């Protein structure tokens, strides 16, 4: 049951965000600024579809006056960058021309400024069918910017947002597909401060946490095994020196050294990984040294040695394979420790940086507003706790750890 739980969490981490896009309809790059801090279960329409919601005339407007045959559907082009189909390219050009005019008016009059009617007409000169409804939103001789923004919304449709509606994948969005598109999907776990779907963020955070935790644990285990095995095989003064170094490093408040280092080199994913490895390899090195040093006395090792087996070969084929169980358990224990440390550093703002999420940053984002929006903290916290607990229990059950 414990292993099944771990499996579910890892599967969610691996498949999570992409799968969630198909299940709940949200992806992390869609920002729902209209609904920050939505409670769990809140129904919302994904952003790119919201443009169309309540604007059912957009299809007619876009296709009117387009190239021949376009009244049956909006062609999407090949989908490669730079080829969005003739209609969308025209719409994008029109919107760009309009934006230039608006930007100029914005500079002189601020967000509530007005655009002279003649400039709007010039900008849309090539597209008379689209100019009509936009000009209708204007006054007799000038257009207020807010009204212009509102009236030109249909021009902002992009290839990606339309491609999501293309249900029969013929690279043409027909009227039925277009009108059937805006369906509300629930934010199963609510949404965060920027209106992003919390479930998708949680899955992304879980992925990054598991990834960083596992990578750091495996790397630290590798470093520790090599170091400890070297010391164990060498024996004598070399081992004394090597292990004394580990002892001294153990005495340092490593966590604070890590914080110091991160403040020097700046927080990034690689530095985070290195920082965790720096802390975690010491215990592994010690354990492996003890294991190797004791296994070296075993009769079969002495026998192999007396038959002329080299040190490296001895270590690789006789000693390490026999020490694999404790080593594997130790590596497994390094995973929750690394995940905890990653969450800890990210929580303090020294690890994963926005816009990426890890379980630590999610908890950090939510905890200042825990009174109003407890669910934003609750889910990442529960998942983090569960992840660490399950691995601990699994390691306990193998009976290899005494705590």
């Amino acid at each position, binding site marked *: 049951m414990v292993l099944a739980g771990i499996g579910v969490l890892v599967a969610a981490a691996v498949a999570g965000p992409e799968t969630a896009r198909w299940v709940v309809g949200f992806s992390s790059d869609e920002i729902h600024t209209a609904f920050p801090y939505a409670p769990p279960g809140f129904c919302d329409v994904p952003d790119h579809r919201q443009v169309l919601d309540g604007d059912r005339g957009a299809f007619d407007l876009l296709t009117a006056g387009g190239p021949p045959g376009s009244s049956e559907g909006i062609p999407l082009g090949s989908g490669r960058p730079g080829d969005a189909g003739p209609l969308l390219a025209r719409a994008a050009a029109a919107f760009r021309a309009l934006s230039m005019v608006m930007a100029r008016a914005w500079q002189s009059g601020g967000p509530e400024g007005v655009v002279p009617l003649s400039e709007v007409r010039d900008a849309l000169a090539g597209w008379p069918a689209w100019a009509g409804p936009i000009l209708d939103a204007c006054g007799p001789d000038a257009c207020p910017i807010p009204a212009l923004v509102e009236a030109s919304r249909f021009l902002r449709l992009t290839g990606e947002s339309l491609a999501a509606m293309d249900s029969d994948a013929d690279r043409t969005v027909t009227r039925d597909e277009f009108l059937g598109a805006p369906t509300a999907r629930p934010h199963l776990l609510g949404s965060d401060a920027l209106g992003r779907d919390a479930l998708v963020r949680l899955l992304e955070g879980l992925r990054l946490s598991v990834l960083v935790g596992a990578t750091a644990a495996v790397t630290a285990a590798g470093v520790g095994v090599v170091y400890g095995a070297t010391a164990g095989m060498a024996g004598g003064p070399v081992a004394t020196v090597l292990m004394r170094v580990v*002892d*001294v490093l*153990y*005495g*340092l*408040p*490593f*966590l*604070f*050294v890590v*914080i*110091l*280092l*991160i*403040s*020097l*080199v700046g*927080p990034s994913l690689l530095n985070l990984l290195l920082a965790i490895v720096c*802390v975690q390899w*010491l*215990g592994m090195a*010690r*354990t492996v040294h003890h294991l190797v040093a004791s296994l070296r006395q075993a009769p079969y090792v002495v026998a192999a040695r007396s038959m002329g087996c080299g040190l490296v070969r001895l270590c690789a084929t006789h000693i390490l394979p026999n020490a694999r169980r404790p080593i594997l358990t130790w590596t497994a*224990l*390094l995973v*929750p*420790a690394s995940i*905890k*440390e990653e*969450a*800890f550093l990210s*929580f*303090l*703002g*020294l690890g994963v940086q926005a816009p990426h999420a890890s379980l*630590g940053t999610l*908890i*950090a984002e*939510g*905890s200042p507003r*825990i*009174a109003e929006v*407890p669910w934003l*903290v*609750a889910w990442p*916290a*529960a998942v*983090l*706790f569960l992840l*660490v*607990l399950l691995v*601990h*229990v699994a390691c*306990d059950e193998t009976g290899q750890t*005494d*705590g």
Partner: protein
Amino acid sequence: MDSRNPCYHPPMFRQAARTLLAMVLTLWAIATGTFFLMERAPGGPASGERRLDPLIEAGNLANLGLADLVRAPCDGVIEAVAGEGARLSSGGEAARIRGPGPCRAEAPHGGEVSVVLAGPGEEVRAGEVLLVVRPSPWVRYGRAMASIMTLDLGVTYGSRGERTVRETLARSLPVSATLGLLALLVAAVLGVPAGLFAAAREGTWSDRLLTAVSTAQVSVPAIVLGPFLLYLFAVRVPVFAPGGLERPSDLVLPAATLGLIVAGVMQRMTRAGAAGFLNGATALHLRARGLSPWRLAGVHALRHAAIPMLGYLPPVVAGLLSGSLVVERVFNLPGVSRHLIGAALNRDYPLVMGVVLLYSVLLVALTSLAALLHPVLDPRLRAGRFREGVRPPEARSGEWWP
């Protein structure tokens, strides 16, 4: 009677001297490492990234003992000034000023001119900084060590040179220290009796239950437990304030967060240490002679459990310290760690160094204290003759920190 004898164990005072020497060496290593990081810090005192105003930067350097400032001794116009990179001997002429009378600015110590703040022909007033002279690395190192030893940790960058690191730390240390001690108290009160109880009933359902709970306690990260307790006891049932430090009761939730986590570790350690004794022949003998089970568990087993516990002390203390970083943030306490994170992200090096040094000294001192206490608790070490089966406490794996 000498160390070649495998059965010989050094007497207590020699063990103590060795521990103290190791402690001094570790602290020296930390201080030296701190110095080198300080020297190499990008954007820090020694380089140009994120450049501060040259005068402020020079002041920071001088405060850290990493540079000398040469000031104008009189009002006047600069006639000549040493160029960047020029080497000056101690008392050498750094600048000549034509004022009411001729006067020369002298370098207080030898070194290399690193920044020139005033050029020839400029008018200066007495006391104005003309040059920054960097002494040789060895002198810098010596000065840095001296200032660390005298607890003079410089001035925080954040306060624009107005508050020393020592003042800042002195103001926030009581909060953190109280929190840490309270947490240890909570941990000891909850963890040790539970561990003894579980050890006395080894194998029963109560033992399994307590062990399961301790696994959960050990697994829960402070960033999970802290917000959880906050939500439960400050939002849903508003017994305590949700943050800040105005009344003593505001420390209850933070101390409980840290204490509960450390209690799990303590319980496991106590159980592991006491179970072997309580199921052994000595305990049976003592029981047969009429010793009450309470006395057996509370006095004899406790002592047996305390010995391995000393070896676990470093990770526990490290866990407390790192946990306090989280807890002070979650509960918005004005403790030491508030300065650490903010300073680390703002590259306020003197402050970061101060906090790291403070925590290092705490950790090393407590670890050494544990090593010193070991022979006091373990009479086998005091006898000083046989060491078979008795090992000095060894720092264990650090997997328990929250």
